[in-house]
């Protein structure tokens, strides 16, 4: 299917740069797609995948660089313009209308009319054609909302291809589909490909990428890593390119405390099932131990963290703290048992943007004490000030709204809030994502110090090097299962990489 290479690209992006404030979300990236190919875009969170998609579908404007469609330079002000030019997108979240019929969802905006009046009959007939064309047996008159998400997804594709589509962007289309449904989707993708449509398939499931994609473009930290033919790229190399870092640069640094192997287990989880996707997870966390969690995006890293901290309930299994079975039914309950969680979504689930640094730091302690036992203002200030100093939060202004701080400092404010609770277990979900290098090292070192003082830490990161460096042991997650838990000392980045990527290296 790479026969098209050498011909003129259907879509070509050169030197594309998109900035949000001072940060470049996309930095001088070139990208091309040929007619009749399925192309994958790979990268971890924050690599710039969604920014690139937005840039080619008219959602975001380029700050620098050019977009060419069939050699003609284009710039789309709106998604509609991109659509008119033949670039359609199907998003991960179905962006259709559950309260309207399938036919309307496919055709609304360019619906057939007879004598100015919208004809439901014509509309159903035409939508029926499109659906049959895709081999879908769905009643066009039925409400979209009456179908499972998978069908809604396929209807979204039907809408996308009911126009003259030349480039079809599928953003994480399979994340909510089961195996049969994925097979159905792939059948459709292949058919479209054979008609000459260029398909951009974004997924974090490696198996699927290797099954359907002809070529793959890898992004990391907003930069282009490279473009490869899928069949020539070993799976482990792909993961390596996504996660970055050369094994040779890598220095492990283990703490003394890790040497004693028999630290008493503080928290243990057995057979934990949690929606969506965590199956039979066993976790043991010793006192003063840092347990790193490694896994690709979508492997269940976050879901595991949330199950351990009462944020989302367990479907099965039991969690014990110091041997006592506990029911972590809310974050509040978990906090009262000394288990605290820092979300990967710092802005939406962490720091309260409009509250001051002071209020943010003291919030959880105050909530834990209850409404009526207010911490005296002087004591609050003292408490917050001590954490601002201990963690080096900048600017050291307690009254500034936390939302005005940089990402790294917001993360520290969040850490201060949790540490002020004097917790026993700290679960950190990607605490160093979107944080500058200096703050990153500080946070890593902090975790080490905390563990030396007897705190148990679960440290989740997409960066394997970081997980190895910070963790005493590392739990490796793949597709919702903990496949292995090994001591960091026994691993190198390469061996960890192999475990994270896949057991079936022959597939690559």
């Amino acid at each position: 299917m790479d026969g098209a290479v050498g011909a003129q690209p259907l879509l070509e992006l050169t030197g594309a740069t998109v900035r949000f404030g001072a940060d470049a979300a996309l930095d001088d990236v070139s990208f091309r797609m040929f007619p009749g190919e399925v192309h994958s875009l790979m990268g971890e969170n924050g690599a710039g995948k969604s920014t690139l998609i937005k840039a080619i579908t008219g959602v975001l404007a380029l700050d620098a660089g050019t977009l060419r469609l069939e050699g003609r330079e284009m710039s789309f002000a709106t998604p509609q313009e991109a659509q008119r030019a033949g670039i359609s997108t199907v998003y991960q979240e179905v962006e259709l209308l559950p309260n309207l019929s399938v036919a309307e969802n496919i055709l609304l905006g360019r619906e057939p009319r007879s004598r100015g009046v919208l004809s439901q009959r014509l509309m159903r007939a035409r939508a029926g054609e499109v659906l049959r064309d895709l081999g879908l047996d769905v009643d066009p008159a039925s409400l979209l909302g009456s179908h499972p998400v998978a069908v809604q997804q396929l209807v979204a594709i039907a809408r996308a291809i009911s126009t003259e589509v030349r480039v079809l962007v599928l953003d994480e289309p399979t994340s909510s589909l089961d195996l049969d449904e994925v097979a159905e989707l792939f059948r459709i993708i292949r058919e479209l490909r054979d008609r000459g449509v260029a398909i951009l398939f974004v997924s974090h499931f490696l198996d699927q990428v290797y099954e359907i994609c002809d070529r793959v473009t890898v992004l990391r930290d907003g930069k282009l890593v490279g473009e490869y033919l899928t069949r020539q790229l070993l799976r482990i190399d792909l993961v390596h390119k996504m996660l970055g870092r050369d094994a040779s640069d890598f220095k492990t640094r283990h703490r003394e405390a890790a040497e004693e192997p028999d630290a008493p287990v503080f928290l243990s989880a057995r057979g934990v099932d949690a929606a969506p996707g965590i199956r039979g997870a066993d976790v043991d966390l010793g006192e003063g131990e840092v347990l790193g969690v490694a896994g690709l995006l979508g492997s269940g890293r976050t879901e595991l963290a949330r199950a351990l901290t009462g944020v989302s309930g367990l479907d099965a299994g039991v969690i014990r703290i110091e041997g006592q079975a506990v029911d972590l039914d809310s974050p509040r309950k978990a906090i009262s048992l000394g288990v605290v969680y820092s979300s990967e979504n710092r802005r939406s689930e962490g720091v309260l943007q409009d509250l001051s640094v002071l209020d943010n730091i003291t919030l959880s302690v105050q909530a834990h004490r209850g409404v009526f036992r207010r911490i005296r203002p002087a004591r609050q200030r003292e408490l917050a000030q001590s954490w601002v100093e201990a963690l080096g939060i900048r600017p050291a202004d307690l009254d500034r709204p936390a939302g005005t701080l940089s990402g790294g400092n917001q993360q520290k404010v969040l850490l201060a809030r949790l540490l002020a609770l004097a917790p026993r277990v700290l679960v950190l979900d990607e605490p160093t994502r979107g944080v500058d290098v200096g703050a990153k090292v500080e946070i890593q070192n902090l975790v080490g110090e905390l563990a030396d003082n007897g705190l148990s830490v679960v440290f989740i990161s997409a960066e394997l090097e970081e997980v190895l460096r910070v963790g005493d042991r590392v739990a490796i997650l793949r597709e919702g299962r903990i496949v292995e838990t090994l001591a960091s000392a026994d691993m190198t980045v390469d061996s960890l990489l192999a475990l994270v990527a896949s057991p079936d290296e022959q597939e690559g």
Partner: protein
Amino acid sequence: MSTTTTTPAVRVERASSPVESFLARHAAMIPSFAAVVILVLLLAGAEAFLRGDFITARNMSALLLDNAYLLILAVGMTFVILTAGIDLSVGSVMAFTGILGAQLLVSGIPVWIAVPAMLAGGAAIGLLIGVLVQYFNVQPFIASLAGLFLARGLAFVVSLSSIRVEEPGVLWLQQTRFRLGDWYLTPTGIIALLTVAVAVFVLHLTRFGRTIYAIGGNEQSARLMGLNVARTKVAAYVISGFCGGLAGLALTAYSGAGYPRNGIGTELDAIAAVVIGGTLLTGGRGYVLGSLIGVLVFGTIKTIISFMGAEQAWMQIIVGALLLLFIVVQRVIVARSERRR
């Protein structure tokens, strides 16, 4: 898209029984059916209780006549609520346009100017609300609140007391009876039913109407589909304001006078009727015909209460209770559809 050689995969299970297929197509109608059931129960109960004195041609004809103004308001409100908005101004708009028309007629302005002026007055207040909502990001609740204040104040600016209407053209709307046996229809009733008919046509058979539903379903998606969201949303409020003017005309004809205190709290009655008729306050789901049923339920309860000689206070309590019932039911429906996603 011409290759049609693929055989349909049977993977997607099509609704097998007619019932399932009907439900898949018309699930949103269920609350409206519930309203029909409630209406039938009310009528049957009253008939049994009053030993056959309730469902008479006279009573049933009066039901439409007495509630024509409310039906017109409910139709306009349905447009707004379908876009997930709300319009608190309609009761006051009805009072304002009613007194405005009466004042114009008393001042010797011909009826063919006075009536369009009433309708335009209502539409103008709707336009103000719509512009605030769409272009200044004001919550519909607050924007229509400003409309409520404005219309109510303007009603008193026009006149502080009621003005009798002698204009034969307006009174004709009320006094004329088109009879069929003991059944009758007044021109106000016909206007109200025509409003319903036009609304059904617009909502179901025009792109504008489908855009109203699309906005209520998901405004962002509607915009991505290339529908004209801004214009449609403003238009919904204009329609509601226009209906307020039309209701003002109907009420003026009904009471033979304009009165600036008319319609205090009527916006709540209209909202209640729409919700009882099965339209979700979260937008996107509901039917104008449901609102018709809602108004009939409302009117029937009122009639039953006056027949039983009970206090009118029960009216508010029963309507409040019905509203609560429907809200809780809707909440359950929404929660279920969210779980499915």
